[in-house]
């Protein structure tokens, strides 16, 4: 086994303000920092997309990361993860939509690329730590086990994407800005003269131009493109034609193109019948749901029947619920009061206060 140095940190640099400041703080703390940007996909600019870049990891973002590292006097490398990203993130994205589920590519990217492939590259460079610009915190408890905590800035908290981190990964991870607010981060960046200080947030899925998921699948992942079929109501009555199930997500209201008089939402996607079920808002309310492929930060912190708060998507407030460990593979989450838009394929993340317990992929909701 290699001897890794606790003085050496690989900083994952997206070219945004958060990872820039993370690198800056590490440098100030005396670490030997190596900046790495992950090149994950070909830039859409090459395809004639002239939309201003609000996404991460494009060529100009990598250039920004390089310039920040230069200013910090830190070595910088752009590394090629295009193939791994395509296999683990882009392909998964299309595959899930084709199966009638709604994928979460950011979860997959963190899990398979940042905290797997990049962590391995960090080890290869002799670095004990990988640092990211995530709004999240880790602490070590009295038992010597790591806990993953929400960031101090509740609005920016990104633990939803990080629930897959286990003890081994947390041991080798640093979140240098997790104790700061976004305003504080920008302020530090401005005072240090970092060119990324006022860069806009990246919010959309980085490889999908203009947030057009269906169009992306049609143009870039044609093997996952569905065929046109029927919109039906809960009784199976045909309401209109859909363009293929890859274009829909449970809870969706916009872009359905059917006039029923009432406000309707996608409540289910029936892949075997190639049908998309439309219902009223009330029928989206679920008492709970099951999850699969569950991951735990520390299994010891979890007990059957415990009270938790659960997030069924990023950017919602967590809802109180009970955690029921049905089988080692399957978890049932029962809301204290019914909740809307439980979307199969999305991650459900389990919290106890500020602590992330773990999470899994939503299999199905129940009424």
């Amino acid at each position, binding site marked *: 086994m290699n001897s890794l140095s606790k003085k050496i940190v690989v900083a994952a640099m997206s070219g945004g303000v958060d990872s820039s400041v993370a690198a800056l703080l590490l440098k100030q703390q005396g670490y030997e920092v190596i900046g790495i940007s992950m090149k994950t996909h070909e*830039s859409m600019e090459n395809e004639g997309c002239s939309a201003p870049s609000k996404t991460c990891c494009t060529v100009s973002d*990598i250039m920004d990361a390089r310039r920040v590292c230069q200013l910090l006097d830190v*070595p910088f490398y*752009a590394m090629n993860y295009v193939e791994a990203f395509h296999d683990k993130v882009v392909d998964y994205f299309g595959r899930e939509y084709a199966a009638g589920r709604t994928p979460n590519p950011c979860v997959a990217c963190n899990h398979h690329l940042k905290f797997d492939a990049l962590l391995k590259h960090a080890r290869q460079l002799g670095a004990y730590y990988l640092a990211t610009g995530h709004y999240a915190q880790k602490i070590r408890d009295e038992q010597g086990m790591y806990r993953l905590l929400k960031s101090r800035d509740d609005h920016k908290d990104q633990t939803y994407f990080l629930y897959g981190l286990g003890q081994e990964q947390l041991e080798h991870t640093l979140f240098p800005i997790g104790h700061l607010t976004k305003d504080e981060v920008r302020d530090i960046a401005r005072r240090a003269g970092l060119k990324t200080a006022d860069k806009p947030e990246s919010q959309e899925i980085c490889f999908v131009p203009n947030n057009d998921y269906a169009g992306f699948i049609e143009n870039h992942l044609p093997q996952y493109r569905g065929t046109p079929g029927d919109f039906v109501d809960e009784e199976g009555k045909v309401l209109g034609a859909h363009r293929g199930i890859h274009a829909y997500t449970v809870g969706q209201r916009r872009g359905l193109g059917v006039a029923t008089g009432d406000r309707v939402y996608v409540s289910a996607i029936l892949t075997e019948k190639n049908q998309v079920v439309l219902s009223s808002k009330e029928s989206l309310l679920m008492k709970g749901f099951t999850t699969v492929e569950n991951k735990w930060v520390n299994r010891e912190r979890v007990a059957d029947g415990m009270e938790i708060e659960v997030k069924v998507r990023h950017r919602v407030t967590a809802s109180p619920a009970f955690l029921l460990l049905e089988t080692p593979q399957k978890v049932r989450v029962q809301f204290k009061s019914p909740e809307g838009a439980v979307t199969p394929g999305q991650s459900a993340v389990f919290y106890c206060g500020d602590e992330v317990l773990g999470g899994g992929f939503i299999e199905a909701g129940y009424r």
Partner: protein
Amino acid sequence: MRRVYLDYNATTPVDPRVRDAMIPYLGEEYGNPSSLHWAGARARNDLEQARESIAAILGCESGEIYFTSGGTESSNMAIKGVVCQALKQRQAPVHVVASVVEHQAVLKTLAFLESSGLIRVTWIPVNAEGELDPGEFQSAVKDDTVLISAMFVNNETGNIFPVDAIGKLASERGIAFHTDAVQAVGKLPVNLKRLSVDLLSFSAHKFYGPKGAGVLYKRKGVPIVSLIHGGSQEGERRGGTQNMPGIIGCARALGCVTADLDGETARLEKLRAELEEGVLQQVPGARIRGSRQRRVCNTLNVGFDGVESESLLVALDREGIAVSSGPACASGAVEPSHVLMAMGLSPKQAKGSVRFSLGRGTSQHDIEYVLEKLPDIVKKLRSA
């Protein structure tokens, strides 16, 4: 930290003799060679002298030397120039033959012309050692073939290709033959009197000259259209005031490198052999990529089983050792090598090779330093 530069196929440092020759053209020798007056006349004189000295070394006429901004422009000028010339006479797309292992300057130029519907391309494969068979060019030629393009020396493996044989069969059929000689000039004697070549591209910065200066040799009587329209410079084939410091530097660099060629070739061959043997002995799972028989003196391409070249490049850089692998993209990330893929290596293997390219500054100590560091680095990468 000790710094060892072993990436001379990417670029070379400017020879101090070359720099000295260039300096007047960044100062008192500011004339425009196209001007009538005394300042212009001096510049014109020096420009033509540079052209003559390059022509004398390469064994051609000075009127066959065109100055460009570098190898990429020269290859663009040759390929697009020949193709567009041919299209003036025919309405239909024309046919071009090229090797699959060409540099991107050729590959992407041809891809552009092909996707624009102007040409059809037949790509000639290489064997497992990255060698080209002239016979394959022979059988690829069609009635409407107007151009064959095959590089002189491959930039990744260092393989020397049989350009004379390919050029001969092209000339027998009246087809223009272009060779990208960017990695050949300065490493091999190139004598155009004895080579069957119509168009030859090269770049000064590969042989201790400045960046931004290149040459296209075009045999007299081979018709090409102009791509850069403007003034009547360069026989009306490339408009724009000439890059005087670059051209003077290019000529001086070619003179210096040619004078040193025999001694330097022998010296580099010895150092390369030392590196090659050392790597094979000390690093398990190391494999030489390319032809060990027909290879330029300075290049060594090695694959390491189970190691990604990108990680190896970064780890070597951390020890001050500069080497490279495949082409880099706009962000600087390494792309899998199309050359190694063409040699039948899997994408994984093609991502596991690095190129050491030696040059004038390479010493015995440098090779020893690499052999001291490399085995441990590879071991570490495999175990992580």
